[in-house]
């Protein structure tokens, strides 16, 4: 307690350490339920958590720690990124050399650069996994639609952040990826040209590309733009969106979970989940005032007293996940170096020129029609994802994987179907060619309409509609569609990454690549 009995100057000095401490920590040691709650809600950073959590939400299988992993990776990226900024210079002449210095000269530079790369890869991978876990556990349903939409925003921002970073070293890898992305943005011209529209429309078609590059050519203006986006705008937006995302979880009543008495946590996590507090021992503090919103809050649910305090159970789990991510990231950074190809050479394309791995599925579709593969199919997929909570309005408990055994069966069948369709999409054109090879003078409009990418998307949509009709359930239809796109994306990404070689030819292994 603040102490200075006689208020003498000497007394003040003697009491200083304690008073200093008390000005930071305004409650007793977090040993009772009450002080534990205080530890959370009297701290600006911890306050984003609810003070109490439901044991179900602490189970490993409820979330697999994926969201917290994403935050951990973002923290690692921020710290390593700031360190990289100390040396990196966003100029055409110096960018490449500054990265080379970081890699070969700066003490610990290589490790930090590697960690930054690996954390970025992990974050992209985990954003897919997290989205899949939220989807398969029905956690997007009312009242969490808004948080799902926010998640879509985070998804796009994560990809954008990662992509803009990929350009910055200004090596052959980043340069040609950038050129391809810039031209995808101008790919509406493919349609404009095929329709035979006059020249003015080409200006319109070029607009997004020129806005992106700040010029009609890839150069200094483009680099400084990506730099600004990568180190300023996107990180700020992501930080804000993550803040709202986590805060919404609290406002939506904690993580989605089946109603009823909490089940003992699974093996291994058992130690993290204590016995639920029986009502008579629950803390006397009322939380209602802090959450004056419509609908349920975490503390006005059916079983408000079956929760446990966030301190230490949730915080401990979060710390554990953070440590695991650090460990993985550091280990990868020590084992494997971030790539750095030769300096960008606009006259000599990298062969094969590949975008970062998470865009190789899209690039695989691009290799039939830039417009459809690069903008139409991904655009429709993204809008479809965003609308999921509004298309599937069935009210069922969140937190049940695949919504039970029927959903599990449908997911498996859809995945199998999607895999066969995706493999055929690659195999048929590779072995037999496509429309242009069969009818050399075919109008481009036919190819825009009928190419492996558009056909695959249509097949997936048809399959899901059939599933929805057969089961009479929009949730089952959504499960089918999501599983199709997830597997299709995975297979195309695999093909683009490992099976495509020079001239985008098909090779079973890099050893078969022709020497050049």
């Amino acid at each position: 307690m603040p102490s200075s009995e006689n208020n003498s100057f000497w007394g003040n000095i003697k009491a200083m350490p304690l008073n200093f401490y008390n000005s930071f920590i305004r409650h007793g040691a977090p040993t009772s339920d009450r002080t534990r709650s205080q530890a959370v809600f009297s701290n600006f950073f911890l306050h984003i958590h609810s003070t109490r959590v439901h044991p179900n939400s602490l189970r490993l299988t409820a979330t697999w720690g994926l969201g917290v992993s994403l935050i951990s990776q973002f923290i690692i990226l921020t710290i390593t990124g700031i360190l990289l900024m100390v040396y990196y210079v966003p100029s055409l002449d110096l960018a490449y050399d500054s990265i080379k210095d970081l890699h070969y000269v700066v003490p610990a530079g290589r490790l930090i650069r590697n960690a930054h790369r690996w954390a970025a890869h992990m974050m992209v991978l985990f954003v897919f996994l997290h989205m899949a876990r939220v989807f398969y556990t029905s956690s997007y349903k009312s009242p969490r639609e808004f948080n799902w939409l926010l998640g879509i925003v985070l998804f796009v921002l994560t990809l954008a952040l990662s992509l803009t970073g990929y350009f910055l070293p200004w090596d052959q890898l980043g340069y040609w990826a950038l050129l391809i992305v810039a031209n995808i943005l101008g790919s509406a011209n493919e349609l404009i040209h095929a329709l035979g529209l006059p020249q003015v429309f080409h200006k319109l078609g070029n607009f997004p590309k020129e806005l992106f590059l700040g010029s009609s050519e890839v150069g200094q203006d483009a680099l400084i733009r990506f730099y600004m986006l990568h180190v300023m705008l996107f990180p700020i937006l992501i930080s804000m969106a993550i803040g709202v995302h986590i805060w919404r979880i609290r406002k939506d009543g904690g993580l989605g979970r089946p109603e009823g008495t909490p089940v003992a946590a699974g093996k291994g996590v058992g130690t993290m989940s204590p016995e639920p507090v029986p009502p008579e021992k629950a803390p006397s503090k009322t939380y209602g005032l802090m959450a004056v919103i419509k609908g349920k809050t975490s503390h006005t649910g059916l079983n408000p007293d079956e929760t446990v305090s966030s301190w230490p159970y949730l915080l401990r789990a979060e710390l554990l996940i953070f440590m695991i991510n650090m460990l993985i990231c550091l280990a990868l950074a020590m084992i494997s170096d971030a790539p750095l190809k030769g300096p960008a050479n606009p006259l000599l394309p990298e062969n094969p020129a590949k975008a970062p791995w998470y865009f190789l599925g899209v690039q695989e579709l691009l290799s039939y029609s830039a417009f459809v593969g690069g903008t139409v199919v991904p655009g429709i997929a993204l809008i479809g994802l965003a609308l999921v909570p509004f298309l599937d309005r069935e009210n069922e408990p969140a937190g049940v994987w695949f919504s039970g055994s029927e959903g599990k069966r449908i997911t498996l069948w859809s995945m199998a179907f999607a895999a066969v369709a995706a493999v055929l999409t690659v195999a048929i054109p590779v072995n037999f060619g496509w429309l242009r090879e069969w009818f050399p003078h075919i109008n481009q409009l036919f190819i825009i309409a009928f190419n492996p990418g558009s056909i695959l998307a249509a097949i997936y949509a048809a399959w899901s509609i059939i599933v929805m009709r057969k089961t009479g359930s929009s949730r089952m239809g959504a499960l089918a569609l999501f599983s199709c796109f997830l597997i299709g994306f995975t297979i195309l990404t695999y093909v683009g990454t490992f099976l495509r070689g020079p001239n985008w030819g098909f090779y079973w292994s890099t050893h078969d690549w022709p020497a050049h």
Partner: protein
Amino acid sequence: MAGRLEKEAVTRRDFLGLAGLWSAFLAILISTIGMLRLPRPRVSPEASSIFRVGKPTDFPPGTTKDIPDRKVRIVATNEGIGALSLVCTHLGCIVRDTGEGFTCPCHGSKFDRIGNVIGGPAPRSLKWLAVSQAPDGTILVDNARETKQAEFYRV
């Protein structure tokens, strides 16, 4: 007591408050629109699209010459001089001469000798660019102006 549903006359205070709010909103809106104009430069920073490639005598009929910096091939025939762009019409990589035509290393588009697509994802033939002559006789090519396929400029 006036019912909640009855319309009340706007008081002077409310009016001033609303006017203030709206003018703030408009000011923000208009300045935002003004700022959105910023990212697109009025003048593109790259070099002029028209460039000199050499004297007519540098291109005897029946020869070709590549200008790598400009990604163009100058084709000289008895009919005159033409300029074939070597930028792939799919996503902008530089095509390579294979002897019978061109292929693109990025996604494998194939073109014939005069740039027609014969395979791969490219949506259209390679561009032919406008050729002209400066007053001093130098041959000029305009990267931004396309002409008909295999159109030759008579020197």
